[in-house]
């Protein structure tokens, strides 16, 4: 189709299918579909079945991936289709505000997103509702945030499908009277989207986002360079034509069509639209998901500096709406009705050669798919964590949770599809506006709470509720030429006389209520819920051992949403210097009961808790990083020796040991892996100044007083997993794992059979200490290792807390390490691990014979590592092989917790 054809007979353009364009579109679509399915391999973690993997891509996206993903959030069908359409139909106030909106967005997120990232990283929050839950210990407030996010996201997804539909429409598909023929293309696109999101999780959009952004940039650049040259007078002509059209009177309303440049009385509208949209965007679950999937706090902020590149392109896109005015584009759908949403695809089809029009269509369609995928994942997260698990099935296992998440993502998309197919397209856009109004009402709850707890939770809830009601009502009252209600997002600001964005008015109301009610409630000293976060949490970055130690809570984040005890563990997990690689997720906890769930859930599930009972054996001179040491000469820290490992089952169901075990066996990936090994190994390495002992020596070495008295008698029996029995139940890799990885944890214990036997005895003895454990202990394969670990609790804590070298006061306690996320292998520098392991292996190879159970595997590994020049590769291979080890066991019943 040529522009000539179109001018002569605009409708003719829609009568046939644009074969070439369609072929290109389908080809590119096929490419991204394949990419989407292959995305599971992208930055692969150990365990794709893990929910965290699925929804956060394992939280290891760097600056550029994050950049592309965030671009996916921003560059939605809204920006391709709706913004130029608004420019085309209603002028700059309705459309071009998107430019200042996306510019001031970045200073705003720069300020608060890093805090949100840090506290989420520290506590394993995946959604904003998780954070609210932790900050105020309020399920209701958390639910309000979750529901708002969920509901506001759905029309947004629908809008993406509208975008895809617009492209298909212009490409000539979707015609016909038969509804099936009409909607089949969209259905196919939907099914593909759903399928690869389901299988690949967040990785799919991350990978496709590269393709998408590449295509978008290509199309935009070509469009912006080429299109004005086809128009008389270039940009002058374009702006001239736009000005003329905007000034012309709209027959339907009797007013001018729109604003060319915001005039008097429109400034406030323009500014409030920009500010309100900027504040709202990062309240959406999908934006938060994307942000949290980045690997560090710095990534967020660096991104805030480079993301404005998108704003520039967005501005050009918006102006394409005016290019279409000058080009005389007639956006008329297959059904013969005018539809401004078609203006961009129609402009492309009219102006470009067929094949490039196909590329442009693909850019728009794929550009709508990526955000749709991200949004559906995010909405599903929110639903699963904050609605399903919090309110419907608190005892959901991880597998159930993962399943619900995936299914929810399908349901959300199906709902969006229904939206698009049954409602008028205009409704999707109107509801999206409404979504923007709603989501902004969660801003005070989320952002203010990042800084202060002055606001009272009930006050925030009241403000939210009023903002929602007011915003919905005000939007309902707005009429437009095409609809009586929800016709736009502007209203006269009450008592001010200027037009403004409804969302901002509602926000102001929200804020006033929140302040007034907070003041009242605070004055009345109404309790404001328990805060599980600490000041330092808001500054945590990747590599911060406090973060790393709490990483278990990331994987076990489900727990933290559910259980009040997690933070207690987190709060007690303060052993400096034990995680030098930044990957050893050793979290040294306090007394057992802390792990077992103080907090709301008496029958707490601790199904993912792998508790490592750790004994801080000795205080040793801290020779960690130079930076840390600087100015802190002579510091000592408590170094934990791992005395044993225990994995808790689902406490709530512990009485049913068999099924618990079975279920956990299925669900819980407990990586007793490298990270543990590395973390512990690293210690002797760092202490090289006085030792140089290999890792395998470590526990024994620790047992000797080095520079300080041991807190415990040397060689307090260490326990290690009762390896074979427990592990076989799981899988072969797990066997290797335990032998090979836990080995260093067992360290001293595994050095000879004799000692190993002793360990087992000790493990039995553990039952005495850990009451209830034995009773619930599973049989056979579930044999648990429950070592008694006793140490002087107070002293250790004190030493940990202050880093001083005072002799700890006596006290007895069990130390626990949560290990759930321990073996996030890919967090490790592979080479480092190889080196460490090799060193360890060498040292163990130099050991006398009769080393014990683990040696077989050790030997093999040593061979693998040493014999293969590309040892990191082979190691990587091994890691993959080990990626699925699952061990699971449970420790003791809930009664023991209390």
């Amino acid at each position, binding site marked *: 189709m040529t522009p000539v054809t179109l001018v002569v007979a605009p409708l003719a353009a829609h009568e046939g299918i644009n074969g070439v364009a369609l072929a290109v579109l389908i080809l590119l679509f096929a490419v991204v579909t394949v990419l989407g399915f292959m995305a599971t391999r992208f930055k692969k973690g150990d365990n794709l079945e893990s929910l965290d993997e699925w929804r956060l891509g394992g939280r290891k996206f*760097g*600056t550029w991936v994050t950049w592309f993903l965030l671009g996916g959030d921003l560059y939605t069908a809204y920006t391709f289709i709706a913004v130029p359409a608004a420019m085309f139909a209603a002028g700059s106030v309705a459309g*071009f505000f998107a*430019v*200042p909106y996306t*510019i*001031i967005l*970045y*200073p*705003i997120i*720069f*300020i608060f997103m890093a805090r949100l990232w840090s506290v989420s990283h520290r506590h394993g929050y995946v959604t904003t509702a998780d954070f609210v839950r932790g900050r105020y210990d309020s399920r209701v407030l958390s639910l309000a945030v979750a529901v708002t996010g969920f509901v506001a996201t759905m029309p947004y997804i629908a809008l993406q499908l509208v975008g895809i539909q617009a492209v298909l429409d212009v490409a000539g598909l979707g015609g016909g009277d038969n509804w099936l023929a009409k909607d089949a293309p969209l259905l196919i696109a939907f099914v593909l989207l759903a399928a690869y999101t389901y299988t690949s999780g967040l990785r799919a959009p991350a990978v496709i986002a590269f393709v998408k952004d590449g295509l978008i940039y290509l199309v935009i650049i070509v469009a912006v360079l080429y299109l004005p040259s086809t128009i008389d007078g*270039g*940009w002058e002509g*374009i*702006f001239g034509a736009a000005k003329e059209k905007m000034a012309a009177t709209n027959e339907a309303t009797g007013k001018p069509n729109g604003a060319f*440049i*915001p*005039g008097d009385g429109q*400034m*406030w509208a*323009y*500014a409030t639209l*920009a*500010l309100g949209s900027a504040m709202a965007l990062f309240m959406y679950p999908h934006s938060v998901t994307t942000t949290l999937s980045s*690997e*560090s706090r*710095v*990534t967020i*902020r*660096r991104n*805030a*500096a*480079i993301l*404005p*590149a998108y704003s*520039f392109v967005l*501005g050009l896109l918006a*102006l394409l709406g005016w290019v279409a005015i000058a080009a005389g584009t007639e956006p008329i759908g297959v059904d013969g009705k005018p539809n401004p949403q078609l203006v961009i695809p129609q402009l492309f089809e009219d102006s470009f050669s067929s094949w490039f029009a196909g590329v442009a269509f693909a850019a728009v369609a794929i550009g709508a798919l990526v955000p749709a995928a991200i949004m559906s994942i995010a909405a599903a997260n929110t639903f699963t964590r904050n609605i399903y698990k919090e309110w419907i099935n608190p005892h959901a296992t991880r597998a159930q949770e993962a399943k619900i998440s995936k299914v929810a993502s399908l349901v959300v998309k199906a709902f969006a599809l229904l939206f698009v197919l049954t409602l008028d397209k205009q409704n999707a856009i109107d509801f999206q506006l409404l979504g923007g109004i709603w989501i902004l009402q969660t801003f005070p709850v989320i952002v203010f709470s990042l800084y202060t707890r002055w606001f009272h939770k009930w006050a925030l809830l009241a403000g939210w509720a009023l903002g929602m009601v007011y915003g919905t009502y005000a939007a309902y009252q707005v009429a437009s030429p095409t609809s009586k209600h929800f016709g736009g997002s502007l209203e006269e600001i009450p008592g001010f006389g200027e037009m403004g964005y409804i969302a901002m008015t509602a926000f102001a109301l929200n804020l006033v209520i929140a302040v007034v009610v907070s003041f009242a409630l605070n004055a009345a000293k109404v309790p404001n819920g328990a805060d599980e976060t*600490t*000041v*330092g*949490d*808001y*500054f945590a*970055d*990747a*590599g*911060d051992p*406090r973060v790393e130690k709490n990483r278990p809570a990331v994987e076990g984040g489900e727990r933290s949403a559910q259980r009040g005890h997690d*933070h207690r563990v987190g*709060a*007690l997990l*303060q052993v*400096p210097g034990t995680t*030098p690689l*930044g990957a050893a997720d050793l979290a040294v906890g306090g007394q057992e009961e802390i792990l077992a769930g103080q907090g709301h859930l008496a029958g707490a599930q601790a199904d993912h808790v792998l508790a490592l009972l750790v004994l801080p054996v000795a205080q040793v001179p801290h020779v*960690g990083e130079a930076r*840390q040491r600087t100015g802190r000469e002579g510091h000592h820290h408590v170094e934990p020796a791992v005395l044993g490992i225990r994995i808790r089952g689902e406490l709530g169901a512990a009485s049913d040991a068999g099924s618990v075990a079975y279920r956990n066996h299925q669900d819980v990936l407990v990586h007793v892996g490298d990270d543990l090994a590395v973390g512990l190994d690293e210690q002797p390495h760092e202490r090289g100044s006085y030792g140089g002992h290999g890792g395998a020596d470590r526990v024994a070495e620790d047992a000797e007083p080095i520079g300080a008295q041991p807190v415990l008698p040397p060689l307090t029996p260490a326990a290690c997993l009762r390896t074979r029995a427990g592990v076989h139940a799981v899988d072969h890799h797990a066997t290797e794992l335990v032998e090979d990885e836990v080995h260093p944890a067992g360290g001293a214990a595994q050095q000879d059979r004799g000692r190993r036997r002793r360990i087992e005895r000790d493990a039995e003895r553990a039952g005495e200490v850990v009451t209830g454990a034995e009773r619930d202990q599973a049989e056979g394969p579930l044999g648990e290792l429950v070592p008694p670990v006793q140490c002087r609790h107070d002293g250790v804590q004190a030493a940990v*807390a202050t880093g001083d070298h005072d002799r700890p006061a006596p006290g007895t306690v069990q130390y626990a390490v949560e290990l759930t996320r321990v073996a996030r292998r890919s967090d490790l520098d592979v080479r480092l691990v190889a080196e460490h392991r090799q060193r360890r292996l060498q040292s163990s190879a130099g050991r006398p014979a009769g080393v014990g159970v683990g040696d077989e595997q050790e030997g093999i590994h040593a061979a693998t590592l040493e014999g293969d020049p590309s040892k990191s590769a082979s190691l990587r291979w091994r890691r993959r092989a080990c990626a699925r080890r699952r061990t699971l066991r449970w420790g003791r019943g809930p009664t023991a917790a209390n």
Partner: protein
Amino acid sequence: MSEFDRSGGPDGAPPTNNSLLVVAGILLAIPVVALLWVSSYARETLRLWGFPFFFWYQFLWVFICAGLTYAAHRLVLVARKPGAGTTGHEAGGDKERDR
């Protein structure tokens, strides 16, 4: 709150140079104020390559804002060293993570 909550410690705020933070805050506020002050740029005159002032001025702010945000980013890195007891990365150390 934790028993370990004490200022400057692992659970407190890291040592912070507040004056640098204020400077960073001002840098971040500049684009917000500039763009929300619509009447300062809602005009046509002073065209650039056919673009009315209103449009190219906002495009210009894309770059200014990126620059200011990046400057603020660097300032914040300087102003707030990773807290004691962390293995925290140096300001430039995050490069390694940009795989």
